[in-house]
């Protein structure tokens, strides 16, 4: 058996025995090339996917629905929205149902919290006391000055302004405005009006979606 020629990718051997060896060599070379190609392609694709995911705008989108209108429940959407906006995110708050109380003219200042049937309140009050006239204003005052005020938590009006300053988009739900007889003039400046589809459209592309 002699080696007839040596080239770049194969060695040609003479004689019949060598033909089967030749086939085996070719086969093996093909196998190794395939494996290497697969690995290279997989690595390259993984890299590209990781890079694309890093740049995904959905990572920086926060969609919040604010549906409650009491003082205690007005804080969560506004705190989360302003913090996210401070981190450079694209934030939208959709105010619906009682959440409209937060964005109507003069609304933020007059948000209340009722102690009756609110067993989670920090100062527990028996319902029979909580139902008396004056108890809601009392609880509201307590929450504002003794709890939030004492710990230097900014009032809702200020937090709302911070949101606007940081570019948070405020949208009021058209349907609930109609139901409660509110008109666009009744809202503070800078609030747009939209419907469910408006919110869904934005929320679809937002990694963070919250219902409050």
């Amino acid at each position, binding site marked *: 058996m002699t080696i007839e020629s040596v080239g770049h990718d194969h060695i040609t051997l003479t004689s019949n025995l060598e033909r089967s060896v030749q086939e085996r060599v070719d086969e093996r070379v093909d196998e190794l090339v395939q494996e290497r190609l697969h690995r290279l392609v997989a690595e390259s694709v993984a890299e590209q996917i990781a890079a694309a995911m890093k740049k995904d705008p959905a990572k920086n989108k926060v969609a919040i629905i604010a549906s409650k209108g009491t003082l205690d429940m007005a804080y969560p959407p506004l705190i989360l929205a302003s913090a996210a906006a401070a981190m450079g995110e694209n934030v939208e708050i959709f105010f619906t149902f009682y959440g409209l109380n937060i964005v109507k003219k003069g609304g933020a200042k007059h948000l209340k919290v009722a102690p009756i049937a609110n067993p989670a309140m920090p100062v527990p009050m028996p319902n029979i006391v909580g139902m008396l006239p004056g108890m809601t204003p009392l609880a509201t005052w307590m929450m504002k000055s003794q709890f939030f005020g004492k710990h*230097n938590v900014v009032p809702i009006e200020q937090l709302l302004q911070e949101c606007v300053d940081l570019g948070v988009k405020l949208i009021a739900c058209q349907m609930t405005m109609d139901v409660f007889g509110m008109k666009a003039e009744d809202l503070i400046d800078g609030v747009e009006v939209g419907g469910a589809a408006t919110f869904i459209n934005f929320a679809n592309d937002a990694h963070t979606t919250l219902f409050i």
Partner: protein
Amino acid sequence: MTTIYQVDKFVDAKGQSCPMPVLMLAKAFRDLVSGQILAIGATDPGSKADMSAWADKTGNTLLDMVEEKGVFTFYLKKA
């Protein structure tokens, strides 16, 4: 050994509660140029985690955090 930083801007967020420290930081950062260092003082214990998360998310660098008598001073560098 503590490093002395060349601070270009100082923000006083002492006494402020969440989310104000982070909001004040973001607003003050707008006026900085790349490479400048800002120091912010806060007393809110939650700000420790918040400052780090903020830097992480915005691509800026949290250089250091110094704690003294309940006041946390964060040094951040604009990317």
